[in-house]
């Protein structure tokens, strides 16, 4: 765990698979049009230029907040995103830098992600001060998605195929998912349904999520339910020209509520995302 100081954080976060950590965002699952989500999942989006800032308050704990900023750019089919995040208070928190590289094809994409973390406060004379691997960690993974039929997307990502140094605060195994979009071509209204399955982490059970999103013009609302323990969340995103604002709340029967806020500047593109 993160040097011992971050152990309480890791235990709280690890108590329930939250699915994301340093670059969490109020975004829909799968390959979302979000730089933070690209870094977090390794799933390259089709539109690939923009900047995003996100804020997450975990389980209603005032000292346990993640702030992140990320940007992404594209060159033909190549996608790249980079970001920086800060979690927790100075004495128990950590900073993280993330990089994602990907390639998209017509109807699919694949990407790699790298996230490096370092404790924010390193006391002189401690083991963490003397050994880099005691105060910093690196994780590498990736993901891929495919659109086998119009409106249907299937994805899989492994955020931590390899990890070195201090262990990441969350163990994030393979997640697979499928979404189905029910909308008419050229119209901006539609319904999106999705299912995801997160593989078991350690001795904990697998994590299943079912959700639905309703898109009406520039407004997207969504809700999802998650099992073991049964819980759910809702979200709302609104878009005005280049600016997208998103908010999501997820409840937990024991740990409280997690709130996610995001602000994105993305060039508008025709059709539903």
């Amino acid at each position, binding site marked *: 765990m993160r040097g011992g100081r971050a152990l309480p954080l890791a235990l709280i976060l690890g108590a329930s698979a939250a699915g994301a950590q340093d670059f969490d965002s109020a975004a829909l699952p799968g390959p979302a049009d979000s730089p933070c989500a690209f870094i977090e999942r390794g799933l390259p989006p089709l539109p690939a230029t923009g900047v995003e800032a996100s804020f997450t308050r975990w389980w209603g704990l005032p000292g346990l907040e993640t702030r992140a900023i990320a940007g992404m750019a594209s060159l033909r089919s190549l996608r790249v995103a980079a970001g920086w995040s800060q979690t927790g208070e100075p004495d128990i928190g950590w900073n993280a830098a993330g990089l994602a590289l990907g*390639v998209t*094809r*017509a*109807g*699919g994409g*694949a990407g790699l992600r790298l996230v490096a973390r370092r404790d924010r406060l390193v006391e002189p004379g401690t083991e963490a001060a003397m050994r880099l691997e005691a105060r910093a960690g690196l994780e590498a993974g*990736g993901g*891929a*998605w*495919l*659109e*086998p*039929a119009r409106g249907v997307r*299937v994805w*899989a990502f*492994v955020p931590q*195929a*390899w*990890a*070195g140094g201090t*262990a990441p605060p969350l*163990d994030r*195994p*393979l997640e*697979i998912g499928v979404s189905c979009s029910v909308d008419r071509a050229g119209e901006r209204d539609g319904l999106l349904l999705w299912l995801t*399955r997160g*593989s*078991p*982490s*350690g*001795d904990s059970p*697998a994590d299943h999520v079912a959700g639905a999103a309703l898109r009406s013009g520039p407004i997207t609302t969504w809700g999802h339910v998650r099992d073991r323990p049964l819980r759910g969340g809702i979200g709302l995103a609104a878009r005005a020209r280049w600016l997208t604002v998103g908010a999501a709340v997820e409840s937990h029967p024991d740990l409280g509520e997690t709130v996610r806020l995001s602000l994105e500047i993305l060039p508008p593109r025709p059709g539903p995302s």
Partner: protein
Amino acid sequence: MRLTARAAILLLAVAFSLPAPARVRAAEADSTSAGGGASAAVGAFVEPPPEETEGADYDVEPADSLSEGSIELGVGASGAVGSKPRQSRRVRFSDRKLGGSVREGQGDPLAGGNVETETRAGRIGVGRLAPRWGRGLLLGSVPEPWAVAPSDRGTGAPVRGRSGQGAWYRAGRVGALETLCGRFQKRDLAGARACGGGLGLGVLGDRWGHAQASLSLARGRAEHELALDRGGRWRAEVAIRHAPGPLALTTWARGGHPGFRSLAEPLRSGPSRVLGMELSDDASWGRIRALAALWRFQAGRSGARAALEVERRFLQHGSLAMGFEERHGAHRESGRVPGFRQGGWGEWHGSVAGMALALRHEVLGARRLGRAAVRTVTAMRLEIEGPAGTGIGITHSTYRVRSGETLYLTETASDRVVLRAVSGTGRRTRVEARAPGAGGNIHAALDVPVATGARTGATLRPQWTLEWTRRARSR
């Protein structure tokens, strides 16, 4: 069994409710080239044959053919991080009358070779032996009690088996007379078999006077075999295949003495009584396969298995397959009795230009509907084609296997298929890269296993392989 029937009906309903594609054959051809490897990488409820050590890795060699007048060279190295690399070399060649392969490498379970040539009097060969006589009661038996034919024995098998080492001679184009001598399971054996008009008579014996005989008849849709040893113990088997069009029904039955053991492959002797049925339909919309088998090794040691597999091919380069199975009792002649097992699996693969993705999830439980899971696996495989013949493949598996059980993950290398034995809770990532180079093809792979559960995050020693192969015309 009522639940089994319900699940079967549900699977059939799901499969048949999907619309039938118009261009499925073309889509199948495309998807096979892009996603076939992915499908092979994630595998079914696979297990090595009974003569192999349980819980150990198992390497097999695909029986891909080499075109006439070709030669293939391969040089490789493999190892684990922190240990000394091991080198390997192999050569395969095929000419009009001469063909063979030789492979060497320290610790390589596939080391060895075979050479065969055609003479005026017939065909002669030396090296690895994996023959099959008749239904396989003496030579070339099935590895599992529910299988109707082995995949690693006899000519035309998709996998090169290795039941023994020695020499063989076959007279006549259709093998009117076949003789062999070699070492099988630490026993020197010699045998001969004469065939004509579908009738075959074979004798197999060793230097200590043990002998067995086989009488087989293959006529029309039916195959029969009767095998006897000098002690009067016998086995008899009949298989009938009825295949009107794409629909095929195979039924088979075996009976005999529980003490009968094949001299060549005693660990593959299998049950003394078997009753089985396999139905397959390779239709335009996809494929369906159903299997049911009952068997008994000896008093108090019997088993049964029922399985259903439905594969739906899609118009846009992909397929979805689902399977269900239920097992009872023991499927090995010795060792522990697993007892009741029920589970299912689902596999999807799709592809777009230059990219293929496959996902698979399977669960096998000790209670109905996969509850009290003894093994759970989720796997993905991604293949990306790059420019100039380059490519990358990534396979990731997460698994949870109950204590005392072993799971075999299928890994496909350039020259072999490895059933990697894993247990406990963990993950495994395999990254493969291929590129043309030095006049041939370079294939590199890195396996990163991670144990989780009690040893959360512990990265085991990564393993790597590097291989160069070249295929050329010899004339």
